């Protein structure tokens, strides 16, 4: 190419804007309607019996629709956690804070939520926690109706029992 052709073009900008009406799915819609009422509900797989919360329409392991609704507790167990040290733009939560995989009582599969009112250094796997809900007038179709989970003064759940705690809760080792 001759120099008269000017500088080589290495990039062009072509912004893309597309509008979508997102739908959550029928199973997730049921879940969100219940969260709107301040209730945490799971859905059971008719194949393996595992209870998912929030359900997304199918049991990923069996490929079956999870149609049976199961009531879940306000208490949960820490399956895993991390301490976030990086500030995220537009996120009002100031680091360091805890993001945890939590299994609510009565469910078998964890979901991710925040933990607070806790000493970050003493958070641990198997720890018992409970949901702290926003005031009822602020409830919407969203998981952040639960502000965060805070520690409970209950015995830890041993690792092999995490994901198997019934709705009745955890009394410690019998």
């Amino acid at each position, binding site marked *: 190419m001759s120099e008269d052709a000017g500088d080589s073009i290495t990039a062009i900008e072509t912004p893309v804007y597309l509008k979508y009406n997102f739908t959550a799915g029928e199973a997730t819609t049921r879940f969100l309607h219940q969260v709107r009422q301040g209730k945490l509900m799971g859905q059971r797989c008719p194949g393996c019996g595992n209870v998912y919360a929030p359900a997304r*329409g*199918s049991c990923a392991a069996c490929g079956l629709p999870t149609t049976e609704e199961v009531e879940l507790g306000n208490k949960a167990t820490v399956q895993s956690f991390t301490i976030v040290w990086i500030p995220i733009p537009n996120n009002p939560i100031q680091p360091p804070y805890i993001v945890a995989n939590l299994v609510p009582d009565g469910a078998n599969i964890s979901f991710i939520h925040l933990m607070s009112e806790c000493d970050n250094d003493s958070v641990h796997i198997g720890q018992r926690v409970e949901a702290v809900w926003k005031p009822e007038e602020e409830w919407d179709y969203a998981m952040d109706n639960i502000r965060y989970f805070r520690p409970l003064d209950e015995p830890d759940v041993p690792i092999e029992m995490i994901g198997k705690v019934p709705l009745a809760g955890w009394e410690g080792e019998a």
Partner: protein
Amino acid sequence: MKDIAIVSFAQSDCRRDAGACNEVELIMPVIEQALQAVGLKNSQDVDFTCSGSCDYQQGAAFAFVMGVDALGAVPPIKESHVEMDAAWALYESMLKISMGQAESALIYGFGKSSPGELPTVLSQQLDPYYLAPLWVDSVSLAALQARVLLDQGIISEQDMAAVVARSRANAMANNPHAQLAGEVTVEELLAEAEWVAPLRKHDCCPISDGASAMVICTLEKARDWGLPYAVIKGIDHRMESHNIGARDLARSLSTELAAEKAGAANGPIEVAELYAPFSHQEIILSRALGLDEGTEINPSGGVLAGNLMMASGLSRVGEVATRIISGDIRRGLAHATSGPCLQHNLVAVLEAA
């Protein structure tokens, strides 16, 4: 490629808006139906699974991964995906079987087009430097193509309306899953206003949500299972330039070539299911395939009766296979397309066992 048996096919209704249903909820019923017809429990009972979909349709990155939740996709599953119509997932599955790496495969395609503005969404599959930044939508491009045909005197508006009238009537008679069906005359259709000239709204396929699924296997496996089946005797796909101006829009050279390589001319074609999203494109395809009165075209109504983007191509194959398995016909042709103005075309030739 070796002969492959199609042993089952299932398709959902074509719906303008599947409402709250997500991808996995669209897929599960058709997969269950296709597997049950063969007596299989889940995707672990086949050697390979391949899906076709496009994340741009529902506007969610990696939406196809969520689709996998319909399978029970736990090890040792062998699973793959094409960001294309599932007719190409069928092609990949046939390669897998031909290479001896599988004896059976489950194929599914799904599309939830209702969340976005499909003709605009499809503009993003154009070349990213010259065409996509202009936001040329799929209907406008098809209209340019129809204009070429009309101005060259290859077709008339009556011909286009006749395609639509036949589609609606066939859908009414033969296709319980159709979105658009009914008795309508050419005169009534031509009395309607132009939409994107020279196209009228009815010249364009509707926008539909839904899914389809198919089980294929080696001929030996089909006999083991003791199931009736249709044989894919030949399959081929060819693609033309992404530069619309460099193409002869009045012809489909890629379809001509794919049909030749798939062996379409090796026998009579009793039924042809053509993926023609616009009425004039059915005529282009019929001409490319050399079809005459001896061939019944789109007895299902084709995609003018309902277009499951990313599943309609697989459904064309399924429609032909179903007619062969039921004994209605002995030989047929299925066609799938992708891209603007029939850019990329696949032809499959199916025969009775």
